């Protein structure tokens, strides 16, 4: 087992290097300029922008820039934002808690809806409940988050005036009120993201469960005289969850990566909004760091998913 993990980690190194190289080249070739705003400011002579480009090494050849970046990264230096003139790791760490809170809650909400609904729908396929769940799931994942987000804002903030739609990181209350406010402002983004996730996951859980529930061993378990709940939870669900675990594990990096659209709509200062504003202002070091961390997380969670298989289904052996 430990040998397996070690081997997987070793394989990850060249693939991460490859990913970083591709990312870097794509970003370097992408058009744009972190100092574009200076160009139309008559107060700033164009030589100033050009001097800044040289100073930040933007005019160096790509391979040199990549080498600089990778050696710094290996030493734990994540780089330096052109736009904020501060270290990239500080920027990211500042944004991480909010992202974890909002996106994490959304994932939890999605799981809490998807697993019970999916399992129950699978035990009674084509019943009224199943039909309704299916229809809602279809609607749910057909509606993009930017649409539901705006819809929620119009309904809950503007018409009903119940919830704020601008997310603030520092609420000026303490104790219980702070918690209330914190929850209140997160309701809309969490619902938007959570319901969207839940919709696709429900369908996934349902079909995984349907596959398993018809198998002979489930019939055997029933024949032994076990109760319905016990059969479903202990026997069927455990097996049905294997593909679901993959899905959830692969979505975990997204929890850290944030949700670009939703964060933008609700002004949530998370990683997603950092990424999009950095892309828009061509702040390459930040984009590079965020996407690279993202790549690392994908590799890591893939590994975790594989290890979890072994635990969920002892028949799968890891070599």
């Amino acid at each position, binding site marked *: 087992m430990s040998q397996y993990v070690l081997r997987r980690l070793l394989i990850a190194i060249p693939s991460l290097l490859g990913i970083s190289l591709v990312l870097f080249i794509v970003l370097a070739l992408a058009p744009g300029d972190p100092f574009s705003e200076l160009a139309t400011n008559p107060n700033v002579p164009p030589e*100033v922008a050009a001097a800044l480009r040289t100073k930040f090494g933007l005019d160096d050849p790509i391979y040199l820039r990549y080498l600089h970046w990778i050696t710094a990264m290996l030493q734990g230096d994540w780089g330096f934002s052109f736009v904020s003139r501060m270290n990239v790791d500080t920027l990211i760490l500042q944004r991480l808690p909010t992202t974890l809170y909002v996106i994490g809650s959304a994932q939890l909400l999605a799981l809490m809806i998807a697993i019970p609904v999916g399992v129950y729908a699978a035990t009674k396929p084509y019943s009224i409940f199943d039909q309704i769940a299916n229809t809602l799931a279809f609607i749910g994942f057909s509606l993009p988050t930017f649409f539901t987000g705006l819809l929620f804002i119009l309904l809950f903030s503007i018409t009903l005036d119940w919830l704020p*739609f601008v997310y603030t*990181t520092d609420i000026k209350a303490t104790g219980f009120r702070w918690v209330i406010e914190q929850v209140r402002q997160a309701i809309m983004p969490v619902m938007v993201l959570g319901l969207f996730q839940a919709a696709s996951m429900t369908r996934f859980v349902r079909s995984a469960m349907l596959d398993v529930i018809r198998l002979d061993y489930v019939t055997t378990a029933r024949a032994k005289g076990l109760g319905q709940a016990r059969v479903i939870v202990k026997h069927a669900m455990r097996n049905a969850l294997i593909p679901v675990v993959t899905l959830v594990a692969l979505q975990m990096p997204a929890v850290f990566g944030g949700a670009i659209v939703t964060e933008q709509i609700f002004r949530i*200062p998370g990683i997603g909004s950092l990424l999009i504003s950095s892309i828009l202002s061509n702040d390459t070091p930040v984009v590079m760091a965020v996407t690279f961390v993202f790549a690392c997380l994908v590799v890591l969670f893939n590994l975790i998913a594989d290890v979890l298989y072994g635990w969920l289904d002892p028949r799968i052996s890891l070599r």
Partner: protein
Amino acid sequence: MLDNELRTMIDEVKDGRMDRRGFVQRMLAFGLTAPMATQILAIGGVAMAEGPSVYKPTKRGGGGALKLLWWQGPTLLNPHFATGTKDQDGSRLFYEPLACWDPDGNMKLVLAAEIPSIQNGGLAADGTSVTWKLKPGVKWHDGKPFTADDVVFNWEYARDPATATVTIGVHRDITVEKVDDLTVRILFKKPTPFWADAFVGAPQSIIPKHLFAEYKGAKSREAPNNLSPVGTGPYKFVEFKPGDVIRGEINPDYHMPNRPHFDTIEMKGGGDAVSAARAVIQTGEYDFGWNIQVEDDVLLRLEKGGKGKTVYAVGGDTEFIALNFTDPNTEVDGERSSIKTKHPLFSDPAVRKALSMLVDREAVKKVIYGRAGRVTPNFLNGPEQFVSKNTTWEFSIEKASKLLEDAGWKVGADGIREKDGKKLKLLYQTAINGPRQKTQAIVKQACQKAGIDVELKSVVASVFFSSDVANPDTYAKFYADLEMFQIPMSQPDPAQHMRRYHSRNVATKENKWQGVNFPRWVNKDYDATVDAAEAETDLVKRAALYIKANDIMMQDIVFIPVMHRLKVEACSNTLRPVVSGWANETDNLFDWYREATG
């Protein structure tokens, strides 16, 4: 004649035979505005009066929280590193310049004790130096005194290329020296009629020497105070998260009486302009929303029964269509739009003239800009005293067609005019931005009716305005026949703006397209006029020269002015902001207050 009369009147004011108001009123009769009149008095030896204050509160604090919404949040808080206005706005909450501009373009004192004038010895008669007296008793937020050393340090800090400041352009050609602890003198290399550039306005805010002295030059990025400003401003720094939020609290030792009004301040970033307008006007979650470039229809709808309104500030920003005077489709020595070529179509003045008649400015205003725009025949639209009254514009497809017809451009089989085998086909580019794409469509439609085929092109703003030499789609390369954008006018003076189009500034491959004359227009008359204006210390003559420069430009049709754009902000019904079209939104923040709701 005007000159003589003016001199007599100035003397009358000096001797007290005529009061200031009388003078200003007489000047209005000459078509000059109040700010211009006061500037004339200043140069004539009568001190310039400070802009009036509208600030009502009679005690410091008590205004509660002020919540500002900047849909592009500031990403850094050192004015010398501010790449955009948003960063200047954020820095200005804590740092202050010597003086700033009020809504009428009048100077307002901040850290300076008096406005320099010839009378008080502040201005050299030959325009080569300006001496600023600093306000005594001003303290940085950490209690250290603010002195002339700080001002001199800012100059040293900014002009050092290793510091990599964006303010270097202002500081590299001047010399700043300390006269005494509360006096600094700025020396110019040549006579400078507009002396209020260095240390004036938000971009020129002053940082403390005692916290930044160690971080001058290459170490500049390591300064801990880059992210936690210690300034002299009305609010003290509390917290900063780049791109997200800035928080500040009242400065109880602020140097202006009864100010500031608010106890805390918050500037939240992120999102988009429409939802920012919504959060201020419709739900009232925020007090003030910055740069609300939203279609007027939407704003009008939001304002109905809302908790806020839009406010406008008039500056000199002009949205224009620039004509390329060189040929974008011919390559000379590996360079397109080379100054060695002539534009095959625009070298016929009739084509340029016809084009200017095909831009329906009235429709653009009605459909797109609404209250945020004014129709104008001029490129230079402010300050008032520099605005030409000699120009006119019209929109007429018939006249344009006739003009082309008479010049020999005949409609071909495909409906497009042609002459000598050259077809009237134009490429019209701009940055991606809702109003701009709509304007493109309006112009294209009119051109089509007149037999001109226009192909539209839109480029992402970060590319279009980029200084990246390798990119072919920048406005400076101008690989198109027409291009549309605006160059913000960041101070109430046209010098920087008009200097751009001097023939020595033509953008070429040789200067890596850093030449700022992007239409590549060369006119000796214009060059001479701008050169004369720059050396002219008589403000009346100087204004006349800039008006002439504008008129030459309009005669040659280098630009087709599309709209004189106003600044649009969203503001709660109770907030009384002071926003100048000549300065950053937060430049007059010390005068903001909230009217008690009644």
